[in-house]
């Protein structure tokens, strides 16, 4: 933003006042032609927001803000509280970030600081392929491979060692919050690792050399010079991953168990907003039921916009820094 403003001022200084008129005009038309599609997108987003708000109005009037923190979801009696879905969405996304971010950071550090150019390119390519897997396929893999593996291999030892914590208590289901978190982590790793890798690559070589020159080892250079310099980009990457996780629908729906409950244990089934929307729209029999679903959609929409906006802002800062 800053740069383009400076650019425009410089341009104004460089152009002769008289002779530039026709080019100016052409320039302006060209700029207009390019801005129009952008405007259309903005209008579309605004329109969706208005439509969603309108359709959600009956539920908003009926339940007020308490919609977000009451947990009775009872279509038979037309009582709707979204808390279990809000909880499931947040919990599965947080879990995805907790599992996915350390792996992504390790990958990013390896790609940006350690691997040779050829290896880095190959590995980046493979990781981007993971992002290209349709989420239904990941979901199927989740049902047939991941969930049984979680039930038999992951959950029993966790319960044996950490079972005294409510988080890891209760019977091993396989299908549930933990499986959803793992699936989401897999889906989040490509974004987080590639954006973090770019953030680390954007760190000027001078920063590394300044740290080396003080007697730092390679690891200390990464730890004290590279990571701190790239931190806003990395935080942006994490938030971006978060945004990716809680908008994700298909794969989560297939492995999370779809039960609107708030259980302390990660082994238990849960439900997310996105999954509820996908599953329940077709069976929403009453107007209020439909309106409550739309209100959840509105919440998801607003939070997605906010989170992605924040992430974009942070990531764009790293290229300016």
């Amino acid at each position, binding site marked *: 933003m800053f740069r383009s403003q400076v650019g425009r001022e410089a341009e104004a200084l460089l152009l002769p006042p008289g002779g530039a008129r026709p080019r100016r005009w052409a320039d302006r038309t060209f700029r207009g032609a390019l801005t129009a599609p952008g405007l259309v997108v903005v209008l579309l987003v605004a329109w969706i927001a208005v439509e969603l708000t309108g359709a959600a109005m009956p539920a908003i009037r009926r339940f007020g803000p308490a919609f977000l923190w009451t947990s009775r979801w009872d279509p038979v009696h037309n009582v709707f509280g979204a808390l279990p879905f809000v909880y499931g969405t947040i919990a599965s996304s947080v879990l995805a970030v907790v599992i996915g971010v350390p792996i992504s950071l390790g990958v990013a550090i390896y790609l940006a600081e350690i691997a*040779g150019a050829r290896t880095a390119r190959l590995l980046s390519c493979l990781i981007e392929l993971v992002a290209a897997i349709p989420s239904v396929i990941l979901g199927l893999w989740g049902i047939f491979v991941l969930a049984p593996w979680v039930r038999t291999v992951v959950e029993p030892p966790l319960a044996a060692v950490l079972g005294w914590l409510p988080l890891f208590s209760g019977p091993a289901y396989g299908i549930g919050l933990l499986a959803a978190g793992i699936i989401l982590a897999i889906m989040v790793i490509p974004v987080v690792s590639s954006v973090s890798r770019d953030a680390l690559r954007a760190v*000027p070589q*001078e*920063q*590394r*050399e*300044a*740290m*080396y*020159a*003080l*007697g*730092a*080892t390679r690891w*200390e250079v990464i730890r*004290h*010079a590279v990571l*701190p*310099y790239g*931190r806003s980009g990395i935080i942006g990457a994490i938030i971006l991953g978060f945004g990716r996780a809680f908008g994700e629908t298909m794969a989560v729906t297939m492995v999370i168990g779809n039960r609107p409950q708030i259980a302390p244990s990660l082994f238990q089934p849960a439900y997310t907003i996105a999954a509820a929307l996908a599953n329940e729209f077709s069976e929403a029999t009453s107007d209020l039921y439909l309106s409550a679903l739309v209100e959840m959609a509105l919440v998801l929409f607003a939070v997605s916009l906010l989170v992605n906006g924040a992430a974009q802002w942070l990531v764009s800062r790293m290229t300016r*820094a």
Partner: protein
Amino acid sequence: MTTLRNQALSDALARAEPAGSVGAWRLRVERLHAYFGRVHAVRGLSIAIAAHRITAIIGPSGCGKSTFLRCLNRMHEVVPGARVEGRVYLDGEDIYAPYVDPVTIRRRVGMVFQRPAPFPTMSIYDNVAAGLRLAGVRDRRRLDEAVERSLRQAALWDEVKDALGKPGTSLSGGQQQRLCIARALAVGPEVLLMDEPASALDPASTSKIEELARTLRETLTIVIVTHNMQQAARVSDNTAFMLAGELVEYGPTPQIFTRPGDHRTEDYVTGRFG
């Protein structure tokens, strides 16, 4: 045959020591070659650097000054594909011997770069303390003392003593470069390498840095790369002229600038090329 080669070597070394200067050699470089992959940047350079003197390296852009300098504290090998051959002795110890840890060499031979690069997420204090912390110093009193001493040495203390918690990047360009000098001094090096330390600075900051170099010479040995001939003439005791990766001439600064022995040196210092 052997005698012939020894003769050649001692000739080279004789040329590598500036005539007329006496005293201890801090650094002694023998037949140094430096490569970037296939690029042969330093070609068999031998030189001896006098202790507590300022040695200027001059020469046209791309002649290998920076590369040579970076061989003196094993920074060259940080670049992927870079390679060094030859010997560099620091107080008689070969810094390229297989058992030598480059980290310890870099603590003894500090470096200041062309563009000031303070660590942006660190305060002024933390910038200066960074090297000591790497070396494992945790004692607050010792850190405080070292930070103050280094900032005083870098002639920056009076300007920043009330703002030590501010980010290092909040300083002006000239102050940032002095901060980087303080940062390098804090670890207590014996040698300070400066690669065109003033080329990105205004004239006032430049003369501050030059003045600083003159005073630091009491405690340190300084090797400074510069493409600014007046600067070399003003600050240095000895001057080495490089061309295409080789050492053309080396001697006391006044001699290099007034009575050069090689016509290429003469052409360069009189501004006829480069």
